[in-house]
């Protein structure tokens, strides 16, 4: 509210988060940084100034590594980071009384988030198209989620993005006039907004109207899929930055940074490189490393000694399908990594069939428990005892003498019929390898 006499206090957590993010982005961490006031009048800014970091941000430099999606041609990119700084959020303007900003009759101010700390990451102008920018943003989202410093949710405004777009003729060193775009609430909207803006600017260039590209803030209109002018920045705004006298300098020790570095989780890019080196194809790598919870689950299963490819297939196949249909997440299901490892190993050693495994998975996801218990409780364990199987086969053959005769007469296709009968008699629990071997022996005997 910016009440008379109210003072700001630095939230300790944001410093920790800033350092973590800086480490995740390979930035230089400033052990001493300070806050400044950025001054302008606007209804969403209750104090008339925003507490931000101007000349000494907490992190400087760094980069983000991105693997572009295979379906878009793939490839690896590295985008530079200019800085990460801490600042306070402004309020939120709600434009009411019309459809969209352009037609609104009045505006309302929601100050609930005003003064809440946020981290602003400024990138270098390294992205060459909408896709790269969207992938950069998605990787940033992955990083903050991996680090546990934000849920990165764009709809809620936990992750917001302003993009600056400029174009220049091939061979020109100097960047063209940059245009800022706001109001994109998804990565795909970001990608489309940039592509629209690039083509708008290129068209102006081609028609010789490059002077009409002015420094301004444009708004992405989702409905009409285009950008419109919001406000033009005539000349440079003078924010009259000066050091914030209400907050002391932020001073952290190298030991503190080191301790955070030590506790840093494996980040998406490292994870991708590891999965790749373990032999997964890039498409699977991208899926598995996309969500930190999923990746953590996978890693935990692997820790129990399970096979990577089998585990990956379970996670990307049946488990993913279940999560999707039940609209839940891997951290909310009852299935533990140990159980999945158990399931995989029981299938591998023939205790249960893969089919049974798929059948009991939903129950394990819903209720938990160990695979063995479920299998035993339901009497689902595989029959692998040759003597037992031989007995069953004998019975099947004796109750179908006509078919046996036909088979022996050369109609070998009937083997499938016998398999089906054995399966029927055992409820599908028979070990197919053992059964086939005995069945063949009996039929040809």
């Amino acid at each position, binding site marked *: 509210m910016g009440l008379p006499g109210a003072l700001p206090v630095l939230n300790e957590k944001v410093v920790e988060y800033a350092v973590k993010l800086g480490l995740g982005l390979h930035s230089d961490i400033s052990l001493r940084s300070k806050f400044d006031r950025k001054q302008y009048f606007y209804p969403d800014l209750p104090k008339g100034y925003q507490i931000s970091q101007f000349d000494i941000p907490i992190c400087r430099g760094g980069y983000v590594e991105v693997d572009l999606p295979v379906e878009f041609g793939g490839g690896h990119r590295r985008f530079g980071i200019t800085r990460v700084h801490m600042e306070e959020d402004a309020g939120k303007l709600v434009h009411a009384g019309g459809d969209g900003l352009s037609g609104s009759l009045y505006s309302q101010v929601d100050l609930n988030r005003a003064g809440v700390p946020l981290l602003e990451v400024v990138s270098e102008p390294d992205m060459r198209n909408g896709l790269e920018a969207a992938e950069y943003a998605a990787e940033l989202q992955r990083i903050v989620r991996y680090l546990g410093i934000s849920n990165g949710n764009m709809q809620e405004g936990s992750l917001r993005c302003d993009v600056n777009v400029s174009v220049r003729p091939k061979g020109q060193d100097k960047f063209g006039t940059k245009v800022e775009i706001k109001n994109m609430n998804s990565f795909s909207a970001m990608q489309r907004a940039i592509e629209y803006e690039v083509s708008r600017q290129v068209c102006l260039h081609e028609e010789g109207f490059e002077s009409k590209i002015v420094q301004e803030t444009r708004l992405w209109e989702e409905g009409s899929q285009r950008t419109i002018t919001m406000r033009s920045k005539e000349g440079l705004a003078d924010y*009259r930055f000066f050091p914030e006298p209400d907050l002391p300098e932020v001073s952290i020790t190298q030991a503190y940074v080191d301790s955070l570095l030590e506790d840093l989780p494996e980040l998406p890019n490292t994870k991708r490189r590891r999965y790749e080196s373990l032999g997964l194809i890039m498409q699977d790598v991208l899926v598995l490393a996309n969500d930190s919870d999923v990746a953590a689950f996978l890693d935990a299963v692997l820790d129990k000694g399970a096979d990577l490819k089998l585990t990956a297939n379970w996670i990307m196949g049946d488990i993913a399908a279940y999560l999707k249909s039940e609209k839940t997440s891997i951290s909310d299901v009852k299935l533990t990594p140990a159980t999945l490892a158990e399931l995989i190993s029981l299938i591998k050693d023939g205790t249960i069939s893969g089919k049974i495994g798929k059948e009991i998975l939903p129950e394990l996801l819903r209720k938990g428990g160990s695979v063995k218990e479920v299998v035993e409780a339901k009497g689902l364990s595989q029959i692998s005892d040759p003597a037992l199987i031989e007995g069953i086969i004998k019975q099947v053959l004796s109750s179908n003498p006509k078919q046996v005769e036909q088979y022996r007469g050369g109609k070998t296709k009937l083997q499938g019929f016998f398999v089906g009968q054995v399966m029927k008699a055992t409820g599908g629990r028979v070990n197919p390898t053992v059964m086939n071997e005995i069945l063949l022996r009996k039929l040809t005997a």
Partner: protein
Amino acid sequence: MFPHLRLSGSLPCLAAMPSIAPAMPTPSHLRFFLTSACPPHPFLSFGKSFFVRYCTRIGYTKPYQDQDPKQCPIPSKMQMESSFGGIVCKSRGCQTLCQPPGANVQQRPVSEICRIRDDVLQRKKSAVQITEDYLSRLHETEPHVKSFLYVSEKALEEAAELDRKLGNNEEVGPLAGVPIAVKDNLCTHDMPSTGGSRILEGYRPPYDATAVRKLREAGAVLLGKTNLDEFGMGSSTEGSAFQVTSNPWDLSRVPGGSSGGSAAAVAARQCAAALGTDTGGSIRQPASFCGVVGLKPTYGRVSRFGLMAYASSLDVIGCLASSVLDTAILLSVMAGEDKSDATSSKKDVPTYAASLLPLNLASSKPFEGLKFGIILETIGEGVNDGVLSLIRDAALHIEALGATVTEVSLPTFSKGLPAYYVLAPAEASSNLARYDGVRFGFRADGDELVSMYGQSRGQGFGLEVKRRILMGTYALSAGYYEAFYRRSQQVRTLIQKDFRTALEENDVLLSPVAPTAAFKIGEKANDPLGMYVGDLMTVNVNLAGLPALVVPCGLTEGGRHGLPVGLQMIGNAFEEGKLLRLGHLFEQTLPKINWTIPSVMDTKI
């Protein structure tokens, strides 16, 4: 006639203050004249003292100590009646001698807080009675002084609640029943808080400033909100949007500012003590003008939470009272770390009053071994002679208490004022941006947003505030930042360095508080620069963030009763304890002056 009047002829020191010697002295003038002009006792050894060098500097080559003791003009019988050193004896002699016959001899400043606490705890008076007494005196004097913007309607209720607690033998705080006034730029949840500005007329904050909350918790009864220059920007309290406060010593004069309402209220005994704020001298200068004690603590000692920010890096909350002991008690209550103010200090808060010795326990030379430095740059040209001679007397008195007083030069001293008038307005331009008519306070109509902003601020702010916002905005603008803001910050660093050096060699630095005593209402109204120059001796202390105590040291010519002048004592950061201890001894040993006879003081409480 009085034999010692011959002094004026034989002592060249007196030439420095010709305006003071009246042709036909009235008793009160005479009293002043003698207390300020009595030479040091010749038996006292001054060494290479301030006095010797002072006399030398003004052309008097043969100080008293080199002369025959028999030539001492003070009658020997007056040199006997004190437990203190000869000079105190001498001073006392003068005082007694010059006291007009039948005058009510005021005792040395006593602690109002202790007196009230005694009354309350020993059930001599109820808290309600005490509050009623003060309120009736307040209402009686207020039409003349106009120091209050708001008088609490709940003070008696609060007092009654205290009496109830006392009746139940419940614990009460150290300020139980003490009626205190609060400067109106400090937020109070139950009284309007306007900062003296039209833009916050009638504004009621939803919370108490930390300092105010602590006073309440200590049992203080808040009497009301005192007048000030709008948002603390001014040195006369004429900059209030609502009313002009008068100096109780002479109603045609200003009480100083910006805490003029608080200082006048204490001087007129409308309250036992008052809170003030000090950004460039706003506690100290009015304390000096009104003859009360003013304490500006170290930056960070008292939480600023709830103080309407003027210049955040300079603002400090302090107090005004009628004795040093009272300011010590108040500081212990108010000081300490506050989670809501990131610039508040974590340092422990001592019980300041505990080290303030009663006079009878003090040795005859309580300042033995201490070094005082009088800031050379504050006793030169442009300073009123009457003020100068009182400050010199105070220095002599300090020497008599056993300390050495030397002159100290702070080479960058004169750079402080211009630096202050860049930095303070720069921060003000930012701090006052929140008064935009959107969320609270005054709002003017406007066709659209920007004109609403403009109209609200244009009509809501007063002239001086607008002037400082403009100056500050200019100083921070692109292209001027380096030349003004950055440069001033560099000056600030130099001033801090100078103070550090001077305070390494001295325990305490001394200076006048202002170049003059209280000036006439309207005298500087159209002379903002003249007003700014008056802050010369106080702003540097804020730039360095140091604590300073102002103790009344005498009366100079003016008005019917003379005009008070205070002595500024500056110490190292967080050494309020030392300042208060020394200030207390200084106050308690100073030749008696009747501090309680301003024109509005005819009724006694």
